[in-house]
């Protein structure tokens, strides 16, 4: 009868939440990899039992874990991420050049067609690919060596490749986003990339409209409209209708356009979600009220969604990887907080409940809609 599986990465382990299609009762399994940071955990679209997890630690480095049974059991696979050739340098916080150094995997993106093919977005920013289910990894160096690398710089979370989008109708086209470099697109399956940041404007870089250097927090796309992208930038919510060639601001009536997380409704390509955060130094909701904002017009016009969410004394953050949707009807929307809550809505955001309240700080949430 189907249902939903939520894959939740936290600062201290991974959790798997499951429910039937009613999405009223959730079972919580975990922690898996207790004590380790799980930046991202994501399942294959072609084999829901195949799941990849990024397990990392300041002490013990990076591991990639793989499950073939829907997250019940796991096996470590390959953890060697070696940059192609001499890695070179990027910009450091103070503007000096700093060597490229691998730190961790932020994002795992299983192929839409092959469960053994998976991409990894890493810090310091680069894109890797595995064709053998995560056992071995090779860099797709065309991104890092695009030429603008020396101008890329770390955001507060590090210089991370945190987002990757695949286009179902055109496997050659992919989008990625890097903090703080910006968004990039390939039209040849990852061999070559170009920055797609025209229209972005960012304080904090000498040229506010530079080709690279923008702190893009998240980009999302509805799979049926692969040329329309939505972006939560450090500040500003943006939209592109030409595959990122140009962007325009759609922050509209948002009370603040700073934020991290973003989502697109599974069945309504113009319905999008953000979680406004007060500012770049105050990483919590405005006025202690946790509110998701929804636009049914692809941006510019936004409505607050607060039913079931704490409306006083709430000072959590919602990180960039911590919002997702399921594909049921009505669309389920989910997000996790740094306070350890995972909230879910089974009615496209109209009302919310805490599916679980006291996990470690949530880094990422991904939904699998099960047949």
């Amino acid at each position, binding site marked *: 009868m189907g249902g939903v599986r939520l894959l939740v990465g936290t600062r201290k382990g991974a959790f798997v939440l499951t429910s039937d299609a009613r999405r009223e009762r959730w079972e919580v399994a975990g922690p898996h990899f207790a*004590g*380790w940071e799980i930046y991202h955990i994501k399942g294959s679209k072609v084999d829901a039992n195949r799941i990849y997890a990024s397990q990392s*630690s*300041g*002490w*013990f*480095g*990076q*591991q990639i874990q793989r499950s073939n049974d829907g997250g019940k059991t796991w096996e*470590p696979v390959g*953890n*060697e*991420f*070696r940059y192609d050739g001499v890695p070179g340098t990027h910009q450091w916080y103070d503007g000096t050049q700093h060597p490229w150094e*691998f730190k961790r995997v932020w994002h795992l993106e299983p192929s839409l067609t092959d469960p053994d093919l998976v991409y990894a977005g890493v810090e310091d920013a680069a894109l890797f690919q595995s064709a053998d289910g995560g056992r071995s990894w090779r860099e797709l160096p065309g991104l890092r060596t695009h030429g603008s690398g020396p101008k890329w710089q770390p955001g507060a979370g590090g210089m991370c490749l945190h987002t990757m989008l695949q286009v179902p109708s055109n496997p050659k086209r992919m989008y990625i986003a890097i903090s703080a470099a910006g968004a990039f697109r390939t039209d040849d399956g990852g061999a070559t990339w170009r920055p797609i940041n025209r229209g972005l404007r960012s304080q904090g870089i000498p040229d506010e409209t530079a080709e690279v250097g923008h702190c893009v927090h998240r980009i999302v796309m509805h799979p049926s409209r692969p040329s329309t992208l939505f972006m939560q930038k450090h500040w500003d919510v943006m939209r592109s209708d030409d595959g990122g060639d140009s962007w325009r601001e759609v922050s509209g009536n948002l009370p603040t356009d700073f934020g991290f997380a973003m989502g697109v409704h599974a069945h309504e390509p113009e319905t999008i979600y953000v979680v406004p955060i007060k500012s770049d130094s105050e990483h919590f909701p405005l006025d202690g009220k946790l509110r998701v904002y929804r636009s049914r017009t692809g941006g510019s016009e936004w409505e607050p969604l607060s039913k079931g969410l704490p409306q006083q004394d709430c000072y959590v953050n919602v990180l960039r990887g911590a919002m997702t949707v399921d594909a049921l009807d009505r669309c389920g929307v989910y997000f996790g907080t740094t306070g350890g809550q995972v909230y879910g809505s089974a009615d496209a955001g109209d009302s919310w409940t805490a599916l679980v309240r006291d996990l470690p700080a949530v880094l990422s949430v991904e939904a699998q809609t099960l047949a």
Partner: protein
Amino acid sequence: MIRVVLPVHLRTLARVEGEVGLELPGLISQATVLDALEARYPVLRGAIRDHVTGKRRPFIRFFACGEDLSHEPPDDPLPKPVAAGEEPFLVVGAMAGG
């Protein structure tokens, strides 16, 4: 038999309980002990020493016989009690909280 004690997270990762015993011919050094450890438990590659540089990860320490050996040359002989199996070689996660 060289005795190696791993921190709990690496024991979990390698799926071992208690100490690890390693039979090593020849020189007993940090490098030969860690080479043998990683050969038996490949999942530990990169978790103690960096994949690229081969150097000890910054938040890993090596102790034995009440001494901190973290900064000793990796090819130097380990203390005789370690080589004789009387004392363990300790791989330790730095006391850094978190």
